């Protein structure tokens, strides 16, 4: 219980400036507001580090688990499986992480503080774009940890460090694009747990019905059909090509095209639904 007495706030009201009454928000303001909201997202991560479990522990567990369980069976030995599985686990964990965007957005929108954001003269979209921007930090953490764990158990990407950085960027960009899907669920769903349910239903087939863990050519034809068009497969292949041969092929192009298509469809849907609610 505080024993402070209040001093008069009129001291703080020395300069009452006439507010700028233009009714449109400029691009500059939108960017500034987005940056502030992203800053808020980072502060929240710092204040509640336990919400980073999924991007810290999951990459460690999955990398170790898949490598030692499947290594011998798929590639003969662990060492030759590493160039296959590290890109796979990387894409799988980062894409799964992008579902958290939706759950957190839903939780956030249910809080009182969103009322204040909505009553402020800011770009209405900023709380959404800021949250999505802050999440790229989570993808970066997951990416770095996956590569680090891989390195610790003997993964040495043949194409060198530069290619690994490029591959990391590709994965982060693609995850950001895919997170629009989950942001959409976050905006339209009624509760955070339902967002999580829907997101899992989307993300499980996307990541497992791909070439992330095993080569697609042992699968039945009908499944290969899906696996080969799955954008996750393209991202995984692009990362493998980059880290192993240092080459950029059609898979990288398809990854980016797929990611762009997701944004093109889901960004307007999400923004529309969000504006209607916000």
């Amino acid at each position, binding site marked *: 219980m*505080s024993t402070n007495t209040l001093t008069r706030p009129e001291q703080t009201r020395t300069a*009452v400036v006439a507010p700028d009454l233009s*009714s449109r928000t400029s691009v500059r303001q939108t960017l*500034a507001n987005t940056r502030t909201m992203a800053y808020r997202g980072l502060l929240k991560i710092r204040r509640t580090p336990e919400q980073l479990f999924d991007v810290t522990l999951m990459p460690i567990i999955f990398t170790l688990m898949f490598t030692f369980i499947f290594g011998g069976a798929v590639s003969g030995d662990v060492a030759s499986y590493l160039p296959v599985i590290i890109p796979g686990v990387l894409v799988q964990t980062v894409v799964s992480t992008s579902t958290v965007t939706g759950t957190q957005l839903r939780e956030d929108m249910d809080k009182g503080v969103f009322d204040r954001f909505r009553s402020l003269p800011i770009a209405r979209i900023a709380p959404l774009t800021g949250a999505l921007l802050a999440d790229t930090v989570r993808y970066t953490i997951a990416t770095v940890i996956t590569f680090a764990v891989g390195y610790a158990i003997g993964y040495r990407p043949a194409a060198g460090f530069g290619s690994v950085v490029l591959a990391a960027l590709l994965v982060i960009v693609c995850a950001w694009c895919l997170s629009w899907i989950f942001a959409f669920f976050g905006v339209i769903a009624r509760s955070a747990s339902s967002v999580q349910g829907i997101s899992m239903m989307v993300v499980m087939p996307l990541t497992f019905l791909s070439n992330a863990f095993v080569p697609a050519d042992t699968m039945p034809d009908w499944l290969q059909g899906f696996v080969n068009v799955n954008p996750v497969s393209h991202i995984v292949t692009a990362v493998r090509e980059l880290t192993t041969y240092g080459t950029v092929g059609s898979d990288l192009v398809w990854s980016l095209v797929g990611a762009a298509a997701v944004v093109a469809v889901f960004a307007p849907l999400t923004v529309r639904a969000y504006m209607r609610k916000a």
Partner: protein
Amino acid sequence: MSNPDLAVEAHGLVKTFGTHRAVDGVDLAVRTGSVYGVLGPNGAGKTTTIRMLATLLRPDGGSATIFGHDVRREASVVRRLIGVTGQYASVDENLSATENLVIFSRLHGLGRAESRAKSTELLEAFGLTEAADRALKNFSGGMRRRLDLAASLIGHPPLIFLDEPTTGLDPRTRAQMWETIRSLVAGGSTVVLTTQYLDEADQLADRIAVIDRGRVVAEGTSDDLKDAVGEQSLNLTLAAASDAGRAAAVVEETLRTPAVLSPESRRLTVPVPGPDAVTDLLVRLRAERIEVASLSMDKPSLDEVFLTLTGKPVEDEDETAGPTTATTAREAVPA
């Protein structure tokens, strides 16, 4: 259509949730520089009205302007002119007080250094300096409200909405909040506040609208209201519950006002103009051989205001379950 002296002008505001008309044709006119109280029980439509005026909810009917700007068509202009302190603290639980204020300052377009200075200044003004870096989870209710109010003042809004600023606060923190609100008005702001407490509206507001079931049932200065209700109210406890009916009839006959009757506790409550009227009443009761067990005088409660203004007791619809309901308001808040 809009009057330049008015900070808020609303005509026939309507908001429907499903089949429930939460706000059913509210008219309001708030003069610039005044404190306007919206008084009513839980579920009366106070919060819904404020949310529509603050552009947080779209009205289903009617119109409202803030300093002449339409809340629907010019929402972003309106947002530059208002500060909103919600019933549930609209601050970020996970962050510290300073972090909250810095973020809101940045969103108001202040620079990095300016935002720091602004939040330091506001924390000082609201007696929160010591708690500046503590996470809000550890804040008391009163501290949270103060931070919330501080956050509403960052943009120097000429109009401030306070939704039940003291519900759930202890009496001392409540008095501090009142002081703060008074000094806001002294600084030239217009304040619209909602409350369940008659004495709060009485203490702070220049004009009061009494709202019930989504409608304004009375509007005027607190003197107007008190004239309608009576300065004080009389509580009579009867010796025998069986006398309650007759006693109520005597009360109505003598004071020309109906009494609120609670048979289980043998208690009658009625607004009275002053002690003389009580003497008359007691004489009549003795003549009727109705024995009075105890008697007390009290400031009128919201119940009596409602009974007098609407002819029916408060029905707590409770869509916004708060810690105190209107019926217990008097016990919770010493007048």
